[in-house]
């Protein structure tokens, strides 16, 4: 059994250790905030760049299949830790090409129409903010929202709703 004598120097060392751990935790929280959680004094996110003319998420020459959608919890626009790993592939693909990325946000049907358009957009923008924190170039990333329209699964059950709460990725040529 190790007995630590709490001499002043030990106390100081212990306090420093605790302070450093707390700072590390705070650092992790800051990262969570960046991914779209709430803070009370928000002034502005990162402005969107001008749209690319003549191409949009549903255009025929946009690649929407390469990367899996990111899925969201009910009523939430936070990028969940379990989904965030998908964004590494998004960054790599974006950096490997010269086009833009369009993130399209969607919701399930359990909200009113106009609120859902806003929620879908907020999801797309949360993903975009997360991509920026991973070093992606914000001037090449657009967002759009279809709200509860264009569901991945038109059924009215939990499984379908979970598939509909998503952000999809479209890479322009």
């Amino acid at each position, binding site marked *: 059994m190790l007995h630590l004598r709490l001499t002043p120097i030990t106390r100081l060392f212990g306090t420093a250790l605790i302070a450093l751990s707390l700072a590390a935790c705070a650092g992790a929280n800051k990262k969570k905030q960046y991914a779209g959680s709430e803070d009370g004094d928000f002034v502005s996110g990162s402005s*969107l760049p001008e749209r690319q003319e003549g191409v949009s998420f549903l255009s025929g020459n946009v690649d929407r299949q390469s990367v899996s959608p990111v899925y969201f919890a009910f009523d939430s626009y936070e990028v969940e830790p379990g989904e965030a790993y998908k964004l590494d592939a998004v960054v790599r693909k974006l950096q490997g090409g010269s086009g833009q990325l369009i993130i399209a946000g969607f919701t399930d049907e359990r909200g009113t129409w106009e609120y859902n358009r806003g929620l879908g957009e907020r999801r797309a923008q949360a993903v975009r903010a997360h991509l920026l924190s991973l070093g992606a170039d914000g001037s090449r990333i657009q967002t759009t929202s279809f709200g509860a329209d264009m569901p991945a699964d038109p059924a009215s059950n939990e499984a379908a709703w979970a598939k509909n709460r998503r952000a999809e990725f479209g890479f322009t040529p």
Partner: protein
Amino acid sequence: MLRKILLALTLLSLPVLPPVAQVRAETPTITVSKSDSIALALTPISGSEGELVTSVLRNDLSLAGYFNLVSGGQPGLTVSGSDSGGVTSGRVTDFSGGTVLQRQYRGDARQRAHAFARDIIETLTGNPGLPGSRIAFVATRTGRKEIYTADYDGSNVRQLTHDGNISVAPALSADGRRLAYTGYLKGYADIYTIELGSGARRRVVKFPGTNSGATWSPDGSRLACTVSRDGNPELYIVSASGSGAQRLTHTSGVESSPSWSPDGQEIVYAADNGGAPRLYRISANGGRPRPVASGYRFTTEPDWSPDGKKIAFNLREGGGFRVAVHDLASGQTQTLSSAGSNAQNPVWGPDSRHLLFTDGPNLVMIDSRTGRRTTILDGLGAISEPAWSR
């Protein structure tokens, strides 16, 4: 019986208005308390289109909620008229046979009937009438979401957009002459305006990101809407041509569904600030938003009544939505139980008494005073997001 005597005494004590071509009452000639309805006899309008005019008139007067339509031939308020050569001459006489209203109406048969009904309502109750107002909504009849317009009673349904895309969130200017909507023709949600007379359409709000939820200021000069160009969906005001964009809100949440106060000074909207969406009001010049204490947790799609006194909105309850009305003076909120548990997007009519909303796929009107429901439209696929002019 007592009620009839009291009504007769009230009528006798009022000055009889002289028969003039136009009668506009500044104050009610009959005072109606909330629970009373006015006994009104509707005698059939004679003449070529008389049958159609009478039928539209009867429906308007019934929907208005103020009247108890009785059979004629007894002393009391009586509506009568004749129809000839595209002109309806309409008259309302009172207990003593004196003329309360006498006027001529032009336009097509439905327009004439609506104009006459509106005058009857306004003359006898002092309140604005619904007849003559126009509605717009989204319907999936064609397999795609398109914008449609109609008369407030569900007649004259016309498909306005033929975008073959997603056309949603319609809003009518107060005068019913212009419509704003959200379209995806460029693959992004942008706000378009349409001059309904000419059909001319312009894409007016087209910032990067999503632009949606446009509603007209009461004087028709500006639009409030949601714009996400800053990296977040925020409330904006722009001119009706899309210029002079002014950002009103600064939160990291979703701002949506702005609705103007009737004096154009304030906007009520829904914002979620990381939690469930709640209602807020903000000056149209910007500044600090103030919560509207509705008493409910998930509240969206607010609509400010034309008389400025109430805000109708949706609240989510269980798996569905209810319509509720918040009274600004008293701070009380009441849910409209006869609207059911699947009711979405309530919008006020010009009388600040009736609301339109969708119940499942159908468009329904409700009298917020009596709870009486009337299905206005069905059979158009799924109807959503109604709008109503003044």
